[in-house]
């Protein structure tokens, strides 16, 4: 048994909210630079030059890469040998978000009621996911999620007979419908299997995975590559102005599902796909 005070989780969440918003992950930066080299249109190249200059300014001056500093998605993997002390976990996470968004001059973009609206003023609550894992550590990932791209995401409950083709068509259809809105080049997170809710969570988790990684099963790793190629043949291009680079990557996460179903969720993210992880 290892005791961890929840205030340590507050401190880490606070720091990760700020760092994730100011510094893009290296894999995303690499992907953007690679795409710039491959793009040949004048407008598309100009857009990618500006996007690269933008994340360099954010790095150097420690300012948010994008003004939509997102809803704070927080993933906690809690080792089952850990005993959390000194307060309530959910409150500790929200306190970290509250402090991070204030101290980091991040935008407060959360409303207290989905229909009646009204800004909460401190970007809480976080969207919190907890998972119990073996061991005595707590792994904390913060992924601030912007809504220009979140709004273009989709989920469909397929009949198993729709097969692989059904999934391929749905991914392309979702990207096509998103068009210029989610700030392409986008990152496409796909969740296949589980239940209605689990498919959506898998798609979100897929966005937290580095772009230079692939699904461990070669069948899905091939599907990731094939879908990236097909998406980049759509011609939507950087910002939707036409060009090769519509997406930087396609990440797929899967799990077993029911004999009667094949849920598939497509969570779209922008070129400012942010996440940062720390282990306590």
């Amino acid at each position: 048994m290892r005791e961890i005070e929840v205030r340590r989780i507050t401190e880490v969440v606070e720091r990760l909210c700020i760092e994730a918003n100011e510094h893009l992950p290296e894999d995303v930066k690499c992907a953007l630079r690679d795409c710039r080299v491959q793009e040949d249109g004048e407008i598309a190249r100009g857009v990618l030059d500006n996007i690269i200059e933008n994340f360099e300014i954010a790095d150097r001056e420690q300012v948010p890469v994008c003004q939509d500093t997102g809803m704070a998605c927080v993933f906690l993997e809690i080792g089952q040998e850990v005993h959390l002390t000194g307060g309530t976990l959910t409150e500790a996470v929200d306190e970290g978000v509250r402090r991070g968004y204030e101290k980091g001059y991040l935008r407060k973009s959360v409303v207290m009621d989905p229909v009646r609206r009204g800004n909460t003023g401190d970007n809480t609550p976080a969207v919190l996911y907890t998972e119990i894992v073996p061991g005595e550590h707590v792994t904390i990932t913060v992924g601030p999620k912007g809504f220009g791209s979140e709004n273009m995401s989709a989920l469909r409950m397929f009949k198993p007979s729709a097969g692989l083709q059904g999934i391929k068509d749905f991914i392309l259809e979702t990207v096509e419908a998103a068009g210029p809105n989610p700030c392409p080049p986008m990152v496409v997170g796909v969740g296949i299997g589980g239940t209605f809710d689990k498919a959506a969570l898998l798609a979100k988790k897929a966005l937290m995975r580095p772009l230079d990684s692939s699904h461990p099963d070669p069948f899905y790793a091939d599907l990731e590559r094939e879908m990236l190629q097909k998406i980049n043949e759509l011609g939507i291009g950087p910002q939707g102005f036409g060009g090769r680079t519509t997406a930087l990557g396609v990440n797929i996460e899967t799990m077993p599902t029911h004999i009667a179903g094949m849920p598939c969720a497509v969570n779209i993210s922008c070129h400012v796909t942010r996440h940062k992880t720390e282990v306590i």
Partner: protein
Amino acid sequence: MVRRITLPLTKELAETLHAGDTICLTGTIYTSRDAGHKRMCEALNRGEALPFNPEDATIYYVGPTPAKPGQVIGSAGPTTSGRMDAYAPALMSAGVRGMIGKGARLPEVVEAMKTYSGVYFGAIGGAGALLAKCIRKSELIAYEDLGAEALRKLYVEDMPLVVIIDSKGRNLYEEGRAAYLASKK
């Protein structure tokens, strides 16, 4: 080639801009998003004046991050314009001519642009740190209670933009993509 233009966006100036033009924009613009647009349209419906003179004005769809000490404004890239589609024709009929944002517009907005010689400019979505550099002055002028969505008057210098939809209704999203796909055939 980059073209430098200075606001206000008169009818004459607007009609010289074409979809696909790369622009450096200098002048005074006003910020507003969903909640601000809703309030402005409610004011127009009541026959009240807008918080700024709408004649030949340009609105930037943005909700910036708070300014750090010493900054004019925080990161300030465009938000998705489609959420303002319900309000844009009414504002254009009141005199607003320019819109800066990102993403697709509804046909009724394009029709209003053709009627009022409007121009829809694209700023690079997600380039908030870069775009903030062009903003030299920022002044809160209305709806302070809306926080990030409050109305601000900005003075921008050489703001990098692309004309997405021009006053004739030509659309870079359609033409740019078609041109790229044709080049790959």
